């Protein structure tokens, strides 16, 4: 550590070498600075592998779509069943979402059924392998938000859509693919791309 900090005291890790008063003046934002007079102005941090179990659980939650939609018979059964399913839930959906259901989703029900199933499987696989994680989390958020609105904005008790939404938001913000995932390799080559 000492060898690295010899030259540049302006670098974040080396602020402990600077006189404490000087460092404290530079970092007034974070509340942790009040407790530790010298050091980088950062909030407390946790290892990045913490989000990996959450990411793996979310991938299983999305890959559940395979259980009742995989295979030619189940696929056509799902395409046929989805409009009835949506129509049955539509009266309990969020108020402003019902016109969306009636005018956009139900007239093109087969298309949306196919899109939803393929999207779920794609999001599940992407989260499982940690590939293009931010894009997958964003897609998962869009899908889950639609289910959430369809189920009537229930935050607790009835369905776990909001819990999955919270999990996906955490995965999105933390770029969970970059630890133990394909994104680690992708980010090495293109580090600033917002898709992973």
């Amino acid at each position: 550590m000492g060898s690295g900090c010899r030259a540049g005291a302006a670098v974040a890790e080396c602020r402990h070498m600077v006189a404490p008063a000087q460092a404290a003046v530079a970092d007034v934002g974070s509340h942790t600075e009040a407790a530790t007079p010298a050091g980088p102005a950062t909030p407390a941090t946790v290892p990045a592998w913490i989000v990996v179990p959450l990411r793996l659980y979310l991938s299983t939650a999305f890959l559940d779509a395979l259980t009742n939609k995989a295979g030619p018979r189940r696929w056509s059964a799902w395409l046929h069943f989805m409009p009835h399913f949506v129509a049955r839930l539509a009266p309990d959906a969020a108020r402003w979402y019902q016109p969306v259901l009636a005018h956009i989703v139900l007239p093109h029900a087969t298309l949306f059924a196919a899109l939803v199933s393929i999207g779920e499987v794609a999001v599940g696989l992407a989260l499982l392998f940690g590939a293009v994680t931010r894009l997958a989390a964003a897609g998962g958020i869009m899908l889950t938000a639609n289910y959430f609105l369809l189920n009537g904005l229930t935050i607790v008790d009835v369905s776990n859509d909001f819990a999955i939404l919270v999990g996906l938001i955490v995965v999105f913000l933390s770029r969970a693919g970059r630890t133990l995932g394909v994104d680690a390799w992708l980010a090495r080559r293109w580090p600033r791309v917002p898709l992973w």
Partner: protein
Amino acid sequence: MNCRGAPFGASAYSKKVQSAATSSLGRVRDRLLFDPPQRTIAVFGHRQGILPTVSEGATGPVYVRPDAMSEPSRRLSRRIFVLPRVYVGVVFAVAGMGQLRASAVWTDPGQSWPAALHEQLAQWLPHAASWYSPILTQWLMPHADSVAPLVAWLNLLMGVALVLGVATRLVAAAAVVLLLNYAAAAGHSIYGAWPTAAYTALALTVWLARAGREWGVDAVLAPRWPNAGIW
């Protein structure tokens, strides 16, 4: 040298330097939890993946492409995990309040909460996991009258504790145990769309991240007793 700039706390890093783990398990633990400060930098969400490392003779921040050695040292801001902590807390608190007032989803109108719990456990009993049904029939269902208010108060207190960030690790571990009980009693696969699996994953994440230490009461408790396992 005790580097106070380490984001994970001076005591942890000095402990690592002094212990110099010689067992392979100790080395794995050190690599997972702590890292030499040269390769560790706390990053905010929008700067993930950019890990400047300082080289000899550098006069300012040097951008170095993340390499295979620097990737494992990624760290995340703990603030991300306040959201699941508060959400799981709200879920538990609402469930507990509903159970105490006999207005939970499980209760029929006019039914008391202990009777509703007994009825729900009886409905689940044929589907329960094989190792769990003795627990249901011998401990939970006969004593439903005393278990039910305990569960309701536990839910409420755990929810409030999570929202406030008090003893977060203890409460999150208890939440995981409680939810695993629900999963075993209901008998659904824990990887299914059963709601408890999602809440269990969130509670486990909160436990791993010690989410109370940011924007919570644990932020005050932890610096005074940093090694207590309950926050």
